[in-house]
């Protein structure tokens, strides 16, 4: 298997992008990544597009073919990849395997989603379509609802309190405010959001016990990366990232069917596979992007990856161990919580963020000092399909 480099990364600001069509966002992010890769007018061998809602929301299918034409990347191979909220990481995986196998030398991976074309109830319904069609969906369950049921159990079992959840939310909003690509750029004022007479109004329950500030926003956005052989990467003469480890695992579709519903088994297995491949351990990771669709998930994933023992992730967040400058900075981008969660874009955006961190090119207020190794966790469904990447900095 060949070593695979990530030589370009691009993103457009996430948020409410009413002026853009889905294809505009995908094309813009792609061009930024291609320019960043220094490919100029050179084409790529393949284009992988991560998207979930094109068919359901924009009534558009075969998106990758359309994008490849629009970018004049013909006759590159083109695929659209749908794997729920893990579509982005799945598209990166497809690109990684294609280059690692020796079949392609250069692959463009782009993920994007346009979720504001529809009303909030329809967007909620669209996201809920990934729940089980007989055992969950008809009952009105939502992803936040699954998050609420998971949070109740996790909080009871591991004595997690709202203060622990607030710590995640405050941290990620603080970092989002420093990230030009973030959807939410306002730091939280705890006195008005979590305390006082207006807390119930400013931070209402969405899916008990989770409140508004425990949830990621509904976002539009796109992100892209360019994967290549190490030989192509070396030609740039600048630092680049390589895929040191990758792992993926699945779990039962329904939360109810899991032996222990608070056990994120697929996260543990995916991370373990990635660590084994990279020959690294959790203590070797300098920066991580974890799938914090809900604050409780950042805490739970940080434990299941192995950064903290079970039951210690909440205290770690409260103690600042996951902040920039802490033991393991998590979601320095603002995470899904503040950068936003355009489904197909998220897994690609996580990888792009780690690439920038490893190239040491972020502003000091967001840069993890001397970051050499980074990790991403992207969840599909409610942690029923999990992908983990470990990236390593290379200085040519």
């Amino acid at each position, binding site marked *: 298997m060949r070593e695979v480099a990530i030589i370009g990364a691009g993103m457009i600001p996430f948020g409410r992008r009413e002026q853009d069509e889905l294809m505009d966002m995908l094309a813009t992010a792609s061009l930024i990544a291609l320019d960043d890769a220094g490919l100029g007018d050179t084409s790529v061998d393949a284009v992988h597009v991560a998207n979930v809602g094109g068919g359901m929301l924009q009534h558009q299918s075969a998106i990758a073919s359309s994008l490849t034409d629009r970018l004049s990347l013909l006759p590159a191979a083109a695929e659209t990849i749908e794997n729920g909220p893990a579509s982005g990481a799945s598209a990166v995986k497809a690109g990684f395997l294609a280059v690692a196998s020796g079949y392609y030398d250069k692959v463009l991976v782009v993920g994007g989603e346009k979720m504001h074309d529809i*009303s*909030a*109830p*329809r967007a*909620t*319904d669209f996201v*809920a379509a990934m729940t*089980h069609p*007989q*055992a*969950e969906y*008809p*009952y*009105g*369950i*939502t992803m*936040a*609802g699954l998050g*609420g*049921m*998971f949070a*109740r*159990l996790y909080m*009871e079992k591991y004595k997690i309190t709202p203060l622990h959840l607030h710590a995640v939310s405050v941290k990620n909003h603080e970092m989002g405010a420093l990230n030009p690509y973030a959807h939410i750029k306002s730091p939280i004022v705890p006195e008005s959001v979590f305390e006082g007479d207006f807390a119930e109004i400013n931070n*209402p*329950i*969405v*899916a*008990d*016990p989770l409140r508004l500030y425990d949830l990621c926003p509904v976002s539009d956005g796109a992100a892209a990366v360019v994967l290549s052989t190490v030989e192509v990467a070396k030609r740039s003469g600048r630092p680049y990232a390589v895929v040191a480890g990758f792992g993926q695992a699945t779990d*039962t*579709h*329904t*939360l*109810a*069917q899991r032996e222990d*519903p608070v056990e994120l088994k697929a996260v543990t297995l995916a991370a373990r596979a990635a660590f084994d491949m990279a020959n690294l351990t959790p203590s070797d990771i300098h920066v991580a992007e974890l799938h914090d669709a809900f604050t409780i998930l950042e805490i739970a994933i940080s434990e299941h990856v192995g950064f903290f023992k079970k039951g210690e992730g909440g205290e770690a967040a409260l103690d600042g161990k996951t902040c920039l400058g802490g033991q393991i900075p998590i979601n320095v981008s603002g995470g899904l919580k503040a950068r936003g969660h355009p489904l197909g874009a998220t897994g690609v955006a996580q990888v792009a963020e780690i690439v920038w961190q490893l190239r040491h090119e972020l502003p000091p207020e967001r840069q993890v000092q001397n970051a050499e190794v980074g990790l991403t966790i992207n969840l599909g469904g409610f942690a029923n399909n999990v992908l983990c990447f470990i990236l390593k900095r290379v200085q040519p």
Partner: protein
Amino acid sequence: MSSDVMLVAHRCQTCGKVHYPRHDRCLRCKRREFDEIHPQGNAKLLTYTAIYSLPCGFDQPFLILGVGEFENNVRALGQIKTDSVKRLWTGMVVKAEWGPIRFQADRIVSGLVFEPLE
């Protein structure tokens, strides 16, 4: 439990593991032979939530849902007949019924509905 609950679960003929929803191979022993079973007795509430941001198709301010585990180990999601999560706790006993859970395409869809017994 009301006898007309229409939910069908499957018990592996080899290892006895109970599956709901249906699986074509046993999650534990991978065999393919199952017996159809129905939930038996009352259920223990494993977890629950109240959802205030509902998908289209639900014309109400909130919805309370939970996962119940029946006496024969069938676990399933259902709506809960109560006006507040403050009246619920994990481990409480609930009675199951089969009743309307939503309107879809101008017809009533029925499903599992839990009623707190304590």
